[in-house]
């Protein structure tokens, strides 16, 4: 496409392409197009990848025009299109205005082979942006440098040779003098350090003075570009990291000996050689040099060359760095047998144990490194990949897609949060696809341990599949394949296994053998990481299956690495003073460093300890950064993060059972060794006596996995410093203990359970009453009864209530709806129905006081209710301190109200009353109960839902948004995150759910996207089952959304459009301007973005969770400070001053605190706020935290702050413009005559503040103006 734009633009732009009128014109036009196409196809750039030509950017505008005008040919030059005779086709098509057969084929292909047209087009647009530029101009400097480098290195022995002079490069004056005579490694290293300030990255133990061998520099035997760059498969890395151009430099054979395999001697020589190369390059070119040791393994060190800006070879534009990797030459003297997985190449010096035994302990890790470091291996790989590219048409795009997908999930390089083991695995994605298409090597039949498949052919994917299909096939494989059980052997070059397959299996690692049959590509990849990969692949497939929804961006465009929202449990482990309980000297050597050893054994131990509680445990850390060449060792990691994905079915169980008492001793010992003193022998109800570990639940069971990890790390690795956020988050949804102690004597009362019990008691009592009609149902609709209130219930027994200080006296009221059996005796008149309800309530209230001792019941009228709307409720306060507000649902009301709205004979205001009444009625009696039960279902399905909602609600409240966003909307939002977690797995803990919701909020483009929550489909469904919305529902949802946006483009209500199956229009919670307006939604997005930043950065330092809930007040025009001591909910504040209730009991009761009528649900601050909103709603925006907030943030409406001509009905308090401030005395301000004559008025801010403080007498401490 791009190419066409570049070339045929001039022709196209001038023409009007809109349905040409005359036939002749049409033909001419299409011929031209055809020619353009042909020209294009003839052009030599056959690289296959679409380039971002510089010329395209200029052509941008006309490009758009082409598309708008329905340019039929634009698709023509798609890279994968076959060359055909276009001129003919174009002709036919021009005449008929029909799509050509070719185009039809494409259209069909796109939908058949690529899920959908859109998906294909999106892929086409994605790929160029992740591949290196292919244009000659940008590549030239890099190619030139590579050539120069090659020339320089091949001739580097004779430093002063004439060639270097001849070459045009301006060599630096201080040319590195190549030492010609062999030197001891120490001497050579010292010389290098002295002369060029280059350290040698010796693996430990470094050579000493006793080392026998000597070394000298010789020019490399050969230099080959390898890896993704050579195969043209490079994919951009995360975090803007450069493309890597891997260059294998073969160490001359003379420098190596047969015995070099032993004890890393080869790697010592390699390090020396690398340092020499560095010195040579440093002296010859002006490039930046650094060492890089992938996966923290110094044996893999390579030299990284970056361009210097403005230097001769400035290839900055390519965003690439050159990595020089020394390898063994093709005719390496090191015998091939040494790289077998079973051979032992390391010896512990002066070991006390018998050396015989050690000879047989294999060192698979170092052997793999040894094998990787062979020129032969590398070239074979190169050829194999090349063969894939040629034999599988869509190989390169598919591999790229897979890598982009993986990179977004941290399976790649990046500056943050990469999954351990995948740092250097860029090529593996290609191998994977190659394996799936070409099939693997068959295993000997008798090698069958249970998992080995006996399938005849192992090829799974067809050669001719599209890139999307290949990608999908790979995901499918990843989602099902268990690398632990089933090894993978790629088709070998030689046609046979080099080493017996069983030898690979004996390494107890995931196995994926490369075509040379000598390397396990998955060596060094922890099983936990592969488990995570499997989860991710499963999740991605789920997304792709949902063809009706947007699938592209969750699959490829969203960065999902942020660990806080990714893992259910995230722990930051400080590695200072780490000391493994069991140390295996040989394995430490094999792994290369102590830290690597510890990391891999942490993985092992934790996997054993957590068992099926987790679906995956992974270690995450940033990719190791490069280091200056003067530093030999990579700086070691001081900490790493552990991420756990829990299995909600098992994660929170209290007991881990071990072997039975009569099991063989070794198994019991193993169990005891794992758990230490936690292990105990118990007898269970079923009579079995079993070793087990019991995790007493101290309140929150969701913390058990964290506790297990802490215990195990402390026991086995002496790791005590572990940071985690889960418990800190938990504290945010609890009231301070000191307040709770005052509220009730026993700490056991409270929580959701006892609230439910109180409710059940209430219902039982009503059922037992002697009422004219019997109770059919009592439907709760209160946050506290659906596990979503920020605080669990903390009832205050009535006999204690009057003794409490004012600031912890709040008793919430739980709403419920009573539904009685149907009766014909209800009056057919709205007003009368309300009166009859009053009579009902009176009876119920009397019965209550008779039946339940110590309880109170009375009738609460609704302020401001019109006579036709439901306007009263019975308020029952139980002696235990639970309060309920019961209303009666009468189904005929709805009909009567609807009739009143339709009735044209009524006055307009009567109909408006009826409308309002209907809104109240539907919300109270229909929507709320339905919503309630649906949310309870979500809670049952996902254990993490309730804690997450509570945190999210707390977050909204803390940011002073509780008066602008209804709690039900927040519940829906969280439900969406839990029910539609894709492309991630459903969170299982509150902190994860919270982080996920916040990051969702930060990304949600609510102007253009609505949420479809499959809330009502989950009833009775299995938690693992995916709930889909029907096509029809979806359609009507979109229609409703479009309709709303066109009707209200300014988004004065319902900026968030959240629809469910029952509420396809998404208006349940947005009536009467309750939902957020665009200003609020913008605020939420900004706050969420800031919070995400805190989460991301905070974890690296110490995340103070409360910082997420701290709201800066400086953005407001003025701030109303409330008097905390009179706020009944003050104890719920995020940072309450506990002395208010602990020390001073003196401000008890400014109200007559008779216990005869307890104040329940009395929240004067909220009342004040609602009054203020009613009075000043158009003038001021108020922001308040209902949860014990002590400040009300206020912002003037910028529109009313401007001077305006006077009108009687401006609707705000105004003063004549130009009236001066009165200073001190009472002299009246004089207005300047001209201002008066203009007759302009401005907002009278001071007077308004004065009125506010009058209205909040006794509640408001002060009002602070922040802007003037």
């Amino acid at each position, binding site marked *: 496409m791009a190419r066409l734009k570049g070339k045929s633009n001039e022709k196209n732009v001038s023409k009007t392409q809109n349905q040409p009128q005359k036939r002749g014109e049409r033909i001419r036009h299409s011929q031209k197009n055809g020619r353009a196409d042909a020209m294009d196809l003839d052009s030599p750039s056959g690289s296959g990848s679409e380039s971002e030509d510089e010329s395209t950017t200029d052509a941008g505008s006309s490009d758009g025009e082409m*598309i708008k005008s329905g340019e039929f040919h634009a698709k023509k030059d798609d890279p994968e299109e076959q060359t055909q005779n276009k001129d003919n086709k174009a002709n036919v098509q021009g005449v*008929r205005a*029909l799509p050509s057969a070719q185009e039809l084929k494409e*259209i069909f292909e796109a939908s058949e082979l690529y899920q959908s*047209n859109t998906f294909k*087009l999106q892929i086409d647009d*994605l790929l160029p*942006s*992740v591949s290196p530029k292919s244009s000659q101009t940008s590549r030239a400097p890099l190619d030139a440098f590579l050539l120069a480098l090659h020339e320089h290195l091949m001739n580097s022995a004779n430093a002063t040779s004439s060639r270097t002079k001849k070459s045009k490069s301006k060599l630096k004056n201080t040319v590195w003098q190549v030492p010609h005579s062999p030197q001891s490694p120490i001497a050579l290293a010292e010389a290098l350090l002295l002369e060029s300030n280059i350290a040698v990255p010796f693996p430990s133990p470094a050579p000493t003075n006793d080392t026998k061998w000597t070394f000298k520099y010789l020019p490399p035997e050969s230099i080959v570009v390898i890896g993704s760059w050579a195969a043209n498969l490079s994919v951009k890395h995360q975090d803007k990291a450069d493309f890597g151009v891997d260059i294998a430099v073969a160490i001359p054979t003379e420098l190596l000996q047969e015995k070099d395999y032993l004890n890393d001697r080869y790697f010592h020589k390699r390090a020396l050689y690398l340092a020499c190369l560095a010195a040579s390059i440093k002296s010859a070119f002006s490039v930046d040099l650094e060492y890089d040791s992938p996966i923290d393994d110094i044996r893999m060190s390579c030299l990284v060359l970056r361009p210097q800006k403005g230097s001769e070879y400035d290839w900055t534009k390519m965003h690439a760095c050159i990595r020089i990797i020394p390898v063994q030459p093709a005719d390496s003297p090191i015998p091939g047998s040494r790289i077998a997985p079973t051979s032992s190449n390391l010896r512990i010096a002066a070991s006390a144990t018998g050396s015989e035994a050690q000879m047989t302990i294999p060192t698979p890790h170092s052997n793999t490194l040894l094998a990787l470091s062979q020129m032969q291996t590398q070239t074979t790989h190169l050829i194999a990949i090349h063969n894939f590219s040629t034999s599988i048409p869509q190989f390169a795009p598919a591999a790229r897609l897979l890598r982009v997908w993986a990179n977004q999930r941290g399976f790649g390089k990046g500056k943050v949060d990469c999954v351990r083991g995948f740092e250097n695995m860029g090529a593996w994605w290609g191998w994977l696809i190659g394996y799936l298409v070409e099939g693997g090597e068959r295993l000997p039949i008798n090698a069958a341990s249970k998992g080995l498949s006996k399938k005849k052919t192992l090829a799974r994917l067809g050669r001719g599949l599209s890139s999307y299909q290949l990608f999908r096939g790979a995901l499918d494989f990843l989602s099902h394949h268990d690398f632990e059980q089933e090894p993978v052997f790629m088709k070998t070059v030689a046609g046979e296994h080099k080493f017996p397959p069983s030898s690979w299996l004996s390494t107890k690692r995931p196995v994926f053998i490369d075509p040379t049959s000598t390397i396990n590509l998955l060596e060094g990849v922890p099983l936990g990481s592969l488990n995570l990969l499997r989860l991710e692949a499963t999740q991605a497939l789920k997304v792709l299956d949902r063809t009706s929804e947007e699938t592209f*961006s969750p699959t490829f*465009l969203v*960065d999902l690495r942020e660990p806080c929202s990714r893992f259910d449990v995230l722990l930051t482990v400080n590695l200072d003073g780490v000391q493994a309980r069991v140390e295996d000297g040989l394995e430490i050597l094999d792994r290369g460093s102590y830290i690597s050893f510890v990391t891999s054994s942490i993985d092992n131990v934790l996997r054993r300890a957590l068992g099926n509680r987790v679906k995956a445990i992974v270690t995450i850390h940033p990719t190791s950064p490069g280091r200056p060449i003067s530093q030999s060792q990579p700086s070691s990691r001081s900490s790493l993060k552990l991420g756990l994905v829990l299995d909600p079915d098992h994660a929170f169980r209290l007991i881990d059972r071990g072997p039975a008492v009569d099991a063989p001793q070794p198994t019991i010992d193993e169990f005891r060794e794992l758990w230490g003193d936690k292990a105990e022998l118990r007898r269970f109800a079923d009579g079995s006596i079993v070793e087990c570990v019991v995790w007493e639940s101290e309140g929150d069971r969701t913390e058990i996995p964290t506790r297990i990890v802490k215990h195990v790390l402390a026991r086995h690795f002496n790791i005590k410093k572990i940071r985690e956020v889960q418990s800190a988050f938990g504290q945010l949804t609890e009231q301070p203990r000191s307040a709770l102690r005052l509220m009730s004597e026993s700490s056991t009362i409270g929580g959701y359970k006892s609230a439910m019990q109180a409710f059940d008691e209430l219902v039982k009592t009503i059922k037992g009453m002697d009422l004219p009609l019997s109770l059919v149902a009592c439907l709760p609709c209160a946050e506290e009864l659906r596990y979503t209130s920020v605080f669990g219930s903390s009832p205050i027994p009535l006999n204690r209530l009057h003794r409490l200080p004012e600031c912890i006296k709040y008793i919430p009221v739980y709403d419920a709806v009573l539904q009685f059996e149907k009766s014909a005796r209800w009056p057919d*008149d*709205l*007003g*009368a129905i309300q*009166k*009859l309800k*009053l*009579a009902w*309530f009176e009876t119920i*209230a*009397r019965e209550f006081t008779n039946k339940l001792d110590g309880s109170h019941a*009375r009738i609460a*009228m609704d*302020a*401001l*209710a*019109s*006579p036709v709307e439901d306007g009263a409720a019975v*308020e029952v306060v139980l002696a235990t301190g639970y309060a309920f507000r019961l209303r009666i649902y009468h189904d005929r009301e709805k009909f009567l109200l609807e009739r009143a709205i339709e009735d044209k*004979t*009524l*006055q307009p*205001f*009567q109909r408006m009353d009826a409308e309002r009444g209907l809104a109240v009625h539907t919300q109270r009696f229909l929507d709320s109960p339905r919503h309630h039960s649906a949310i309870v279902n979500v809670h049952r399905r996902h254990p993490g839902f309730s804690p997450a909602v509570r945190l999210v609600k707390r977050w909204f409240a803390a940011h002073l948004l509780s008066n602008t966003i209804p709690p039900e909307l927040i519940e829906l939002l969280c439900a969406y995150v839990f029910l539609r977690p894709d492309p991630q797995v459903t969170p299982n803990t509150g902190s994860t759910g919270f982080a996920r919701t916040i990051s969702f909020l930060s990304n949600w483009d609510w102007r253009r996207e609505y949420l479809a929550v499959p809330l009502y489909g989950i009833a009775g469904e299995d938690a693992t089952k995916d709930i889909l919305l029907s096509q029809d529902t979806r359609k009507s949802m979109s229609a409703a959304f479009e309709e709303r946006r066109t009707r209200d483009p300014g988004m004065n209500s319902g900026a968030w459009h959240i629809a469910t199956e029952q509420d396809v229009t998404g208006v349940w919670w947005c009536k009467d301007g309750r939902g957020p307006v665009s200003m609020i939604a913008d605020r939420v997005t900004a706050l969420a973005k800031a919070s995400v930043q805190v989460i991301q950065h905070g974890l690296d330092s110490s995340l103070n969770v409360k910082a997420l809930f701290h709201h800066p007040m400086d953005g407001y025009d003025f701030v109303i400070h409330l008097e905390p001591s*009179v706020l009944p909910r003050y104890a719920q504040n995020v940072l309450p001053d506990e002395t208010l209730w602990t020390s001073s009991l003196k401000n008890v009761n400014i*109200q007559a605190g008779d216990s005869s009528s307890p104040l329940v649900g009395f929240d*004067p601050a909220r*009342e*004040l706020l609602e*009054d203020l909103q009613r*009075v000043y709603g158009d003038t001021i925006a108020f922001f308040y935290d209902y949860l014990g907030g002590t400040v009300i943030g206020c912002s003037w409406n910028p529109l009313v702050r401007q001077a305006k001509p*006077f009108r*009687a*009905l401006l609707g*705000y*308090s105004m003063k*004549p413009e130009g009236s001066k401030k009165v200073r*001190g005395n009472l002299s*009246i301000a004089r*207005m300047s005559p001209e201002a*008066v004559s203009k007759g302009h008025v401005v907002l009278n801010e001071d007077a*308004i503040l*004065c*009125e506010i403080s*009058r*209205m909040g007498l*006794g*509640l408001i401490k002060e009002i602070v103006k922040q802007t003037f």
Partner: protein
Amino acid sequence: MQKLSDFGVLPIAYTPQVIHYLYIRAHITKSKAGAAIDEFPPNRTLFVVNIPPDATERELITLFSKPGTVERVAFAGHDRVEGFVDEETSDEEAAESLNMEEMEINDDGDDSPSRKKKNEKPKAAIPKIIPLPTVSLRHLRRTGSIGHLIFTSPQGLASVLSLPESALPLTWPKFKAASAAEPSGLAHYLAKYRSLRPALSAVKEHADSSMEVYEHKQALANRNTSKYRKGDAIVDEDGFTLVTRGGAYGQTLGGGVGVASKKFTQEIASGKRNRKKKSSKKDGFYAFQVREKKIQEQISLKKKFDAERSKVEKAKQGRKFRPY
């Protein structure tokens, strides 16, 4: 006094430092000449703009006590929420108009219990509604609202309109907390909370009496409507059966034999109910039809494809398809 368009600017000192401005003007009647009783007598009514939102009648009366005696205050603006007129009012007979004035006065400081009281108007010789007890509460209106002050005499109005500079600004009255009948702030909310929870006995009386009134009215209405009973066919002397249009359930209150409901007839009229007629035209009979259809299909396919492409193109401008 300063003038702003045709309004006088009346400064009110909330505190010595903070001045609130009222905009006043004599009330101009727009009513037709014939209107016998104007709600606002023309020569002694003051039209006031920008009344403080929390002002009570008492406070305003006190405020203007110096220049003249205010008879009553009429806060304007039918706050729909505060609507006081019951559905029943329209049902009732013409006597309504007499009550109007009284109701206007009661409007201020209105809260639901007191309104309840007013909903049920006393009727001659019928049971009376016993109202719920009321507490006078401060009523907050929207900021910048308007109202009318009716003075006892035209002199009062005149003296307000010609207040000398020296008398300005007027001071906003402040009642001592104890004497304040209408508390504000925390005390207001407490009083409101309590007033919304009347004693059970009062509620019972109110509910029972209201139901009595309703039943009485219902009985009255029934007497007036029809001698026919529901469901019975009405046959006149000549033996003809009266046919009426059905209600929602195909039955009418008055009885008679139901015919098609209005809705049904409307549907018939709008043609919604038209049964699908099999079109006599046969598709795909001629070869050209098949061809045309195929072409149409292909074109629409193409169109769809182009639409999707332009959608992608649009998305591209937004997100560029750069994953990271």
